[in-house]
């Protein structure tokens, strides 16, 4: 049985769901096919635009994206404006405005200004468009502040004592722009989750969505804040799935000081929240999201994609649309593969672009030298991928981390590239209908 859509998106990450939304907003019938959760769901939830350029911390992403467009004409940000930096930045700003709208004020940020956030390693990194709960964690604005870091007993992923010592050391030694005065570690318990056993961020966030657990949480924090006089309170990324914004507002009000979540490792609650925000927004305007459905192959005739073959746990199914957007992610999400000999993109068999240097660098911690990070598919200025024969498929667009020529790990640009390219691919796909 064939089902016909105006547009089909492959991949339910930041790129795919953004593209889907743009097309559905124009009143079109859209389906997203997704085999599983991708990297968006694992991310810290903070949207990077550009965190490092030439190994320097970027303070103003707009300026540095402009430079990047000049120096790296193949970078996805350069493709956004077809080489025109003004146009590219317009798309960046539009797509972020558009994103902020769907978050219902749960995200904040300014494309002309990076902020610097702390993480579970007790180190720092820049980001740009961030959940409200992280807003007051900008280390650049916490100069000479005394912080309280609060861990949760049983939650072994975050160690407040380590975080406190490390952040103090790392910020004061290496972050030129600011200093911290002191970080005081404290611990609280979530009684409903039991004592002295492993508890996960997921369990804590679910518990804090309940009034009972949250009020116990708040009580303990209130008591701690009377013991030491601090300028702000930092907690791990656990403030709930449903009520995180509300919880955060209550905490700040009741404690009388800024409170913020720091960036976490996967499984990351803010990453899951971001995934949820994107899915809900798509759902709200009628996008069908088919989960657990892997696209196996595409049927192509005369450079036009006709149908997609898919498989789920139970059955095979054919999907048909007028346009398609490929947003199946990079290696982690299995949008791309490397089998030891060759690179391939499994659905359309698009050529995977990469340079001839070694996949990986000698040392593991190196910025920009793991060439495999730059591998991906190349698109033209309309966001259409180039096929093996050098032509473009007339009705296929691509976006997100499947794209070639950038390294989100080093430059800190992952969700930003996914959002902006997904936005443009969606707009272009819609215009082509």
């Amino acid at each position, binding site marked *: 049985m064939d089902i016909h859509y105006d547009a089909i998106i492959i991949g339910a990450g930041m790129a795919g769901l953004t593209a889907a939304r743009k097309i559905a907003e124009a009143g079109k019938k859209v389906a997203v096919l997704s085999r599983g959760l991708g*990297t968006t769901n*694992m991310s*810290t939830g903070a949207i990077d635009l550009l965190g*490092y350029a030439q*190994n320097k*911390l970027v303070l103003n992403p707009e300026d540095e994206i402009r430079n990047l467009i000049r120096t790296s004409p193949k970078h996805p940000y350069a493709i956004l404006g077809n080489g025109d930096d003004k146009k590219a930045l317009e798309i960046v700003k539009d797509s972020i405005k558009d994103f902020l709208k769907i978050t219902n004020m749960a995200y904040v940020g300014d494309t002309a200004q990076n902020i610097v956030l702390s*993480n*579970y*390693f*007790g*180190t*720092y*990194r820049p980001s740009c468009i961030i959940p409200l709960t992280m807003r007051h964690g900008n280390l650049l604005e916490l100069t000479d502040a005394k912080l309280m870091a609060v861990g949760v*007993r*049983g939650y*072994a*992923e975050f*160690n407040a*004592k*380590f975080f406190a*010592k*490390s952040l*103090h*050391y*790392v910020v004061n*030694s*290496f972050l030129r722009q600011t200093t911290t005065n002191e970080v005081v570690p404290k611990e609280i318990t979530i009684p409903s989750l039991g*004592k*002295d*056993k*492993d508890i996960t961020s997921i369990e804590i966030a679910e518990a804090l969505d309940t009034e009972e657990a949250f009020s116990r949480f708040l009580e303990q924090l209130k008591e701690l804040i009377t013991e030491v006089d601090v300028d702000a309170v930092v907690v791990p990324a656990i403030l709930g799935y449903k009520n995180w914004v509300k919880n955060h507002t209550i905490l700040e009000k009741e404690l009388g000081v800024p409170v913020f979540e720091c*960036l*976490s*490792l*996967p499984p990351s609650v803010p990453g899951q929240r971001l995934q949820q925000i994107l899915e809900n927004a798509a759902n709200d305007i009628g996008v069908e999201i088919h989960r657990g459905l892997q696209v196996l192959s595409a049927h192509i005739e005369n450079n036009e994609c006709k149908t997609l073959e898919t498989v789920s746990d139970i059955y095979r199914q054919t999907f048909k649309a007028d346009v398609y957007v490929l947003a199946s992610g*990079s*290696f*982690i999400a*299995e949008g791309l*593969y*490397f*089998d*030891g000999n060759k690179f391939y993109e499994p659905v359309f068999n698009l050529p995977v672009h990469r340079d001839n240097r070694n*996949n*990986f660098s000698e*040392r*593991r*911690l*190196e*910025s920009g030298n*793991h060439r*495999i*990070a730059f591998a991906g598919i190349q698109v033209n200025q309309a966001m259409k991928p180039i096929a093996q024969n050098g032509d473009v498929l007339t009705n296929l667009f691509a976006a997100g981390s499947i794209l070639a020529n950038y390294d*989100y*790990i*080093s430059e*800190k640009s*992952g969700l930003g590239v996914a959002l902006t390219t997904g936005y443009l691919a969606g707009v272009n796909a819609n215009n082509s209908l």
Partner: protein
Amino acid sequence: MERFDAIIIGGGATGAEVTRDLTLRGLKTVLLERHDLSSGTSGRLHGLLHSGGRYVVKDKESARECAEESKILLEIASNSAHLTGGLFVGISGIDDPEFRDLFLQGCRECNVETKELSPKEALQMEPYLNEDIESAFYVNDGSVYPFRLIVSTALQAAQLGASIRTYSEVIALHKDDATVTGVRVKDHRKGKIYDLYADCVINATGVWAGEIAKLANIHIPITPSKGVMVVIDRRLFTRVVNRLRFPANGDIIVPHISTAIIGTTSVSMEDPDQFPVTAEEVDEMIREGAVLSPFVEEARMVRAYAGNRPLFGAEPGEEGREISRTFRVLDHETRDGVTGLITITGGKLTTYRLMAEKTADLVAEKLCIHADCVTHKTKLPGAEEHDLNFVEVAKKLKIPWLLADRTIGRWEAEAKTIFTSMEKNPLTRLTACSCEYVSNAEVKYTIDKLWAYTLEDICKRTQAGFGICQGGLCTLKLAYQLFEYSKDNEIADIQKAIIDFIEERWKGTKFVLWMNQLRQELLNQSVFSCVGNYDQLHEKILKSRK
């Protein structure tokens, strides 16, 4: 002035066992190791507890030693040496069928127990074997986990009064005329240099033995012989599987916990510190491994590593003869006219106890001490009988039963110490590594009692970080433990430990990065560099400590 009866240089299996042996004989000893225990060849081996089968045709002396020693080890080190059983299989059309008779005859001559199997029986025992089997034999091969074997050995010596000093490198020998009287030590952790004196200095530095001898102007003919091994993600066999042919590259697969290790090669090297792994060698291991089991090609490669064997060359007068691959105890008094120095090198891990016994006998003779060797009947800590039951432990401590089960599996009787600390400090019940089920208490135990100073040290002792995620998610949790429990670490040291560990693990994983292992690596790099920002911060952190 610090004085000992004996100074032992080298914290591999041999040095640790010489220390245990001499301490059991009542001597005051100190063990000096420049890195961590078993950071040399003893930590870079294939992990096969040899029944002797491998050597019955080409090196009968080694075969006999292995046959006897493997039995003893299964008794005294039951927590780290396991009798898995082993097969020798000849593959039709590939392996020389005439080897079969030579093998059978060799086993008889060397007292290596064996039993011929029909191809069908062999396949029933190991269903993932290549089906084209021509002949097959069963032998008493086993597997050995060297890190725990060696820390248990050192632990027993320490319990009896030996001083175990890791990250302590011998940089010079003190000489009084033709007598070695002591050593100069560089403590790498504290950055200090000091001297120690003793009646006897034992050079148990394996493939590095020539370098220590050089400090006394003595020449020892050692050629490093590199071997490469590849770890795959599934335990394809329950037994060790060997090719029934003259020993060659890639002809043994050793099962190890939930993985299997394919090995190995033999390439002469100039420098004992160099053992690079090449992509060609990894390919060769996979190709040869696939002859033993076609399933090797489907498996996920977890990591590759290599080590240098100490191959003892010909002594003057021995040139041209077929030299046994067995060990050498060199009495430098009779050999070179230098008293106070003995070298033990060559051999295998399987024969390390015997090597130590012969060395300690010579030391005892020199120091006129009348005490017999008792190492063959003294069980290592953990190897004693115990009645720990994981279900009961799990219930009592309210921990996941897998955690209890794995902890007992690793430490046997010694697991009691870990469970006691869980009782005292409930927070140590939490899991530090959820791939391998390692608790904070176990990590704490290695820091408190087993000379673990770095994340790599912890992982070698507990297997934390060796699971599917290859440290991606547990690195930070292990660092927390090092931070909580190690005594003299500053926060900068812990940050350095994280960086060192990330790079250390890279040495093994970077050769096998495709398909799922590649996904895992990119995820780990996202965690370390995208979230942790270590790609930007590592140089700054390392520099600031200098």
